């Protein structure tokens, strides 16, 4: 009954979705790990990236420009949001941070709806990446294949920034103990702004590169945000490797379950999350002590 070509193509779909979720989760988790704020507007930022890119595309007809514009615009939104609002919330309870980022997410979504309506928009794949590529054992949409590469490169770039640069070292130290980093005379505020910007950039980038696969609409970020949460619970908060591992697991679960019945994909994801919570409450690669 199981069709092998179908199975392998779903496996690939899972890989693509997983990489995308890993990118989203990394953005969310480095912000949380460093700043202690869970950004509920992260899904809306994914959506903003798609719309900013789409707008740039309609003017320039260039996919590359669209990707750059989408990512940078969302990064700018993140930086402004951190400077104007979020920084006043570091000292406030978690609940307030959740409420304000949730509210900002709604403002983003409704602003986009106000200007562009609720209809969905599409950004076509760049000319060289349209169509289908024969992989020998199966046919696979070229852009999806490229997307996998693009997102993996983005994850690698994020890894290099986090693990191979001075700023990355400060960010990782901040995830361990931000008070100590502060005490060492490093300007944490500038780092915070930058981290929020990088996290937002990741979401915006994910939003625009995914636009040729799934058309964009104002509420497109909601579903992906929920899946990102599951990824983080599975992988462990504040862990970049955890986000990547969790993303890939979640992507495969969703894709492979969809092969049998799409209605159960969310249920299976939830079952996996529950198993992790019961067996390893801090996530697969998380450490105790982070709440």
């Amino acid at each position, binding site marked *: 009954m199981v069709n092998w070509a179908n199975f392998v193509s779903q496996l690939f779909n899972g890989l693509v979705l997983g990489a995308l979720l890993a990118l989203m989760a990394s953005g969310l988790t480095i912000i949380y790990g460093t700043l202690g704020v869970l950004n509920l507007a992260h899904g809306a930022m994914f959506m903003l990236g798609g719309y900013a890119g789409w707008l740039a595309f309609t003017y320039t007809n260039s996919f590359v420009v669209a990707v750059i514009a989408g990512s940078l615009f969302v990064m700018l939104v993140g930086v402004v949001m951190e400077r104007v*609002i979020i920084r006043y919330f570091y000292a406030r309870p*978690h609940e307030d941070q959740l409420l304000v980022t949730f509210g900002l997410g709604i*403002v983003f979504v409704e602003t986009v709806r106000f200007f562009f309506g609720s209809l969905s928009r599409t950004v076509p794949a760049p000319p060289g990446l349209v169509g289908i590529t024969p992989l020998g054992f199966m046919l696979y949409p070229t852009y999806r294949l490229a997307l996998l590469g693009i997102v993996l490169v983005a994850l690698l770039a994020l890894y290099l920034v986090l693990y191979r640069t001075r700023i990355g070292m400060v960010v990782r130290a901040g995830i361990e103990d931000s008070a100590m980093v502060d005490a060492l005379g490093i300007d944490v505020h500038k780092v915070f702004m930058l981290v929020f910007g990088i996290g937002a950039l990741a979401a915006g980038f994910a939003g625009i590169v995914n636009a040729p696969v799934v058309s964009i609409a104002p509420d497109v970020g*909601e*579903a992906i945000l929920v899946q990102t949460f599951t990824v983080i619970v599975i992988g462990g*908060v504040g862990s970049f490797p955890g986000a990547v591992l969790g993303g890939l697991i979640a992507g495969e679960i969703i894709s492979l379950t969809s092969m049998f019945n799409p209605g159960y994909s969310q*249920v299976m*994801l939830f079952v996996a999350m529950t198993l992790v919570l019961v067996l390893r409450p801090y996530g697969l690669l998380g450490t105790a002590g982070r*709440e």
Partner: protein
Amino acid sequence: MLKRRRYLIEVLTAIGLIAAPFVLPQLGFTPTTINRILVWGLFGLGFDILFGFTGLLSFGQSAFFGTGGMVAAYLLTRLDFPSVVLALVIGTLAATVVGFIVGLIALKRTGIYFAMITVAIAEVFYFVEFNPLSEYTGGENGLPGVPAPSVHLGFTTIQFNTDWSMYIFLAFWYFVGVVVALRIVRSPVGAILRAIRDNPLRAAAVGHNVHGYKLMAFVVAVAYAGFAGGLLGLMQGFMPPDAFTFDTSGQLVMQTAIGGAGTLFGPLIGAAVWLYLSDFFQTTLHLGATWKLVLGVVFVLLVCFLRRGLIGGLLDFGALFTRRRRRTPPERAPIPVDVASLASLGPPRRRDEAPFSGPVIEVRGLTKSFGGLVANKDINFSVQQGELRAIIGPNGAGKSTFFKMLTCEMSPTSGHIFFHGRDITGKSVASVCVLGLTKSYQVNQLFNQLTVRDNVIIAALADRRGTFAPDLFRRLQSVPGLDAQVDATLAMVGLSDRADLSVAELAYGEKRRLEIGLALATSPSLLLLDEPLAGMSPRERGETVQLLKNIRRGRTLVVVEHDMDAVLELAERITVLHEGAVLAEGAPSEIQRNNLVQEAYLGGVAAA
């Protein structure tokens, strides 16, 4: 004051509900809108107990709102269930059972994890409702044809089939919901929930099963959600599938925050604002979906500037005036307390257990290692009934680790702890506290948003009720012996005249005494004091030493302290820890003469 006005809020609620149909239409509210406000307000009553009182922000309440509604609607439409109220109750029970299981999973973690898990769980319910269960729930069509409720009175039948008769039906249930919620909030459980929001660590340390109470708050919220969901179906004559959406949970959270969390009526006010804005923008201004943008902006501004919502803002505003009138005399400086003259608390309450003549606490081979670092190695230690023991040692000697293991805050790598001859190794902090062993902390762990008296009440409650009791409907004042115990404790630590102040208004020395008071109020037979004199002025030190002398009558005390004069004055025996092991033990004079001790403290300088 409170006694005289005991039913004030209930009476005001009843008056408000009776007046609403006459007043609100004048302001532009349609009857349908008013009914919807009531359903959301009832949904929010339970949510506020979870979020406002306990501090657990769930973004997944839609799951239970939907479940309660769907079950009730299914019974009424597909099974032609005869009794509407019974269908509501069964729907609520179904939601509660489901919620209990979900709570078990979601409450494995707190804070942002809890929020993320509830979101994920609610999403599952949404998908299950739409796909696998669509045969029962109608999928995206929902369940139409829910009959209007009616009540048979024998001689006549009342039908609630118009907007205003439906209002009567809903208002009745809202009123019942308020009465129940007020009982819960005023019960011992309500007090403990507030303490958990404030300081979960200390709530557990004074003997409360924090996880159990959180689960209880969750189940209460779920029951309200399920019932409100049932009412939604009745009100509309149709159970909509979008009750399950994330938007439903989001709307509930936003309405509660707009109205004011922790006020019970916040969700109702928030719902009124929300639904009014929605009506006004869509039908009066014809601006379609713009209202949600306006609402989002309003919401963000409220969270930024009016963190306690509209009701909280009004209360704060009102307090500005009353405080100005009430508190014209300037704040007085803390008056030094003549601790020697204070009442003594009397011996701790006798726990009904077989008399035990051995040591109060005995520790065998206790070891704790963190990775390669051994903080405590092979400690043997015992304290006799009525003794006052001091533990001293240089910084890093492992004193705090040792204390944490004694109170079961931390479990040892190996070794055993016996309290009154009973092995308590691996028990929870809360259950050990109820057995009669607790600690006062080196860094104050108080319930900062509560009054001094409420702080002590929280600490005394577990001693009176055990680690967990589901007495949701009992009045706090009716817990036997509680008042006497609280008064005696306050007198003992010299805070009787500060009882109604909030903790934030206390001077540092007073906070330190309250810290000890919290431990005392749990009626411990063995009290551990972690640096009780830390950070005190010389005069405060004198007072506190005297306080400790008062406390020790009838109790066994173990004190970690750096102040040698105090240690030598108080202790009968001293245990010296050094590099995680017991270096010496004996009477103060022996310890003073001990060469090893001098060496440890003075860094190898041989004493003459």
